[in-house]
């Protein structure tokens, strides 16, 4: 089980701030997770935008980053300061 957090405007796309998910075994990279979730939420690519970054256990990951040992995954739209 993995906690997935959707920050900023992405929470409106997904309809939730965070959720706990059982991710299928074949979804093994951050990039695969983007595609799987984008389809699941019918987000029309909102989760695929290159400006949306993924953090795995509070560290920025890339599309090829493995989800092994991931306990918290965050989808982060561009940050704009406070």
């Amino acid at each position, binding site marked *: 089980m993995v906690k997935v957090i959707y920050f900023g405007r992405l929470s409106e796309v997904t309809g939730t701030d965070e959720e706990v998910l059982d991710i299928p075994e074949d979804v093994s990279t951050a990039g695969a997770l983007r595609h799987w979730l984008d389809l699941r939420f019918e987000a029309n690519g909102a989760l695929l935008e290159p400006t949306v970054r993924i953090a795995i256990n509070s560290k920025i990951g890339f599309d090829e980053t493995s989800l092994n040992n991931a306990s918290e995954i965050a989808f*982060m739209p561009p940050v*704009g300061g406070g």
Partner: protein
Amino acid sequence: MIRVSDETIDAPKALAAFERDMSDAGAIVSFTGQVRPQSASGEVSTLFLQAYSLMTESGIESALAEAQRRWPLSGVHILHRTGEMRAGETIVFVATASKHRRAAFEAADFLMDYLKTEAVFWKKETTPDGATWIEPRQGDYQDAARWQTEKVE
């Protein structure tokens, strides 16, 4: 000291504590950022700030370390609000102390540029038209870019 929390910020009280600690420094600069009552999209009823605690704080820590590397600072105090705020409430308070007033000014300016452009926050503004997530503005990036090109004394 860095604090990111949804507690109200009392800037004058924070300045008083900082000045007590920094009474040997000579020069103290503070910046207070408050929620403006007006934005591009009209009257602001509330501003909501979301942080990603560990990443937000470690980002601010890195900016602070960079400031300490660049300028001779006696101390720095950073308070940043999260959650829902109303117009006039304080979003951010930064205070810097140094023996040199130029260092205190430049470090506060540098930290504010980081906090206003690169810090890990997402911002939602509520106006009579509804709630909108605010994306980064170009002008903010230009402010932060100053520190890459400018000669720093």
